[in-house]
Every structure is written in C-alpha cells, then in structure tokens.
C-alpha cells in the first residue's frame, strides 16, 4: 500500500482512539505529517506503527505498549505534559504546541504533581 494512503488510514483510526481520551492531533501539521510517515515506515519494517520517539526492546510486553497511540499506557505522564512524548497528540485545549515541554518520566515522577511545570 502506498505510504500516503496508509498515513491517512492510520490518522483516521487513531482519531477514534484519542478523542475519548481528550486528545487531538497537534496543530503543527508538519510535525504530524512527519511522525505519521515514520510510523508507516515502522509498520512496514516491524509490523506495527510504533512510537517513533521511544525505544523498542524486543520484549513483546514492553513494545506493545509503544504502538501508537500509546497514551493509555502513559496517561498521567502525558496528561502532565498535555502532549504525548512525540507531540503527535496534544490535549484538546492546546493551541500552541511549541509551548509544551517534554518532561522526562523521571522528572514527572519526582515532581509529584503536574502544576510545577
């Protein structure tokens, strides 16, 4: 299947998953396009559209939690950033995604609460 078509398919499928979670696609359309393209490549190479910004280990239990959208498995962490790690998805109320920082897992855990950022 051609990459462009698969990108559109993934985009439509993921939209149905992220909507009830309170997320939308980033308004940064160039970033969205780039990330979806990476996911199509990853799907071709590895069988699933994995997160392009996190590392696979080859362990099924770990890696399956990195299939996009991986929000359900990183909910609190991503909610604190108002975005997923890649920035493909942001909270519905976000208009300026460039203002959102990547907060590492450890920083998030150490902060204890999200309003410190």
């Amino acid at each position, binding site marked *: 299947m051609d990459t462009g078509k698969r990108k559109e398919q993934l985009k439509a499928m993921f939209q149905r998953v992220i909507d009830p979670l309170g997320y939308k696609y980033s308004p940064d359309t160039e*970033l969205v396009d*780039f*990330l979806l393209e*990476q996911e199509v*490549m*990853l799907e071709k190479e590895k069988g699933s559209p994995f997160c*392009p*910004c*996190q*590392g*696979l*280990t080859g362990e099924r239990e770990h890696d399956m939690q990195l299939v996009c959208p991986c929000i359900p498995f990183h909910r609190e962490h991503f909610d604190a950033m108002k975005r997923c*790690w*890649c*920035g493909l998805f942001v909270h519905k109320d976000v208009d300026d995604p460039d203002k959102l*920082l*990547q*907060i*590492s*897992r*450890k*920083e998030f*855990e150490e902060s204890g609460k999200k309003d410190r950022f």
Partner: protein
Amino acid sequence: MKKVLMYTLSTCPWCMRAKKFFRERDIPFEFIDYDKADEQTQKMIREDCESHGEEIAFPFIKIGEDVVVGYNPRKYSEFLES
C-alpha cells in the same frame, strides 16, 4: 568544554531538533542512533537510560555529568554553562 553525548532515534523529530541546537552553537557532540545500533550497543543504551531512572525515551543527552531527556533548550544551555 563539556563532553556532549546523545542517544537518539533516526525517526524522532525532537532528536533532530536537539542535534540542530548543538550544531547551531558549534558545540561538538557525539550521537548514537538507538534504532540503527547493533544489539549490544542497544543493550548498553537501555542500561544507561535505566541507570538514570528513565524510560527508553529519546533524545537522551549527557552534558558532562548531567542528563537531559527530551528536547529542552533551556536545560541544555543551563547545563552547558554550569
């Protein structure tokens, strides 16, 4: 000058932005693309991430003794200057 080492992914836009940050400031750095590395190197990178209490999320950047996970120019500058 502090030594800068990055673990990155070839598919991750924030890794590209991080590299750009250092290049634009003429700060030399080394990097390894985790997804292109051999198994042994991957294992070493995973252990390094985990030893810092982090997930295997990229970019993972060591500036001297300090570690920044994620694209965070403010922190990069802070650690470069400290």
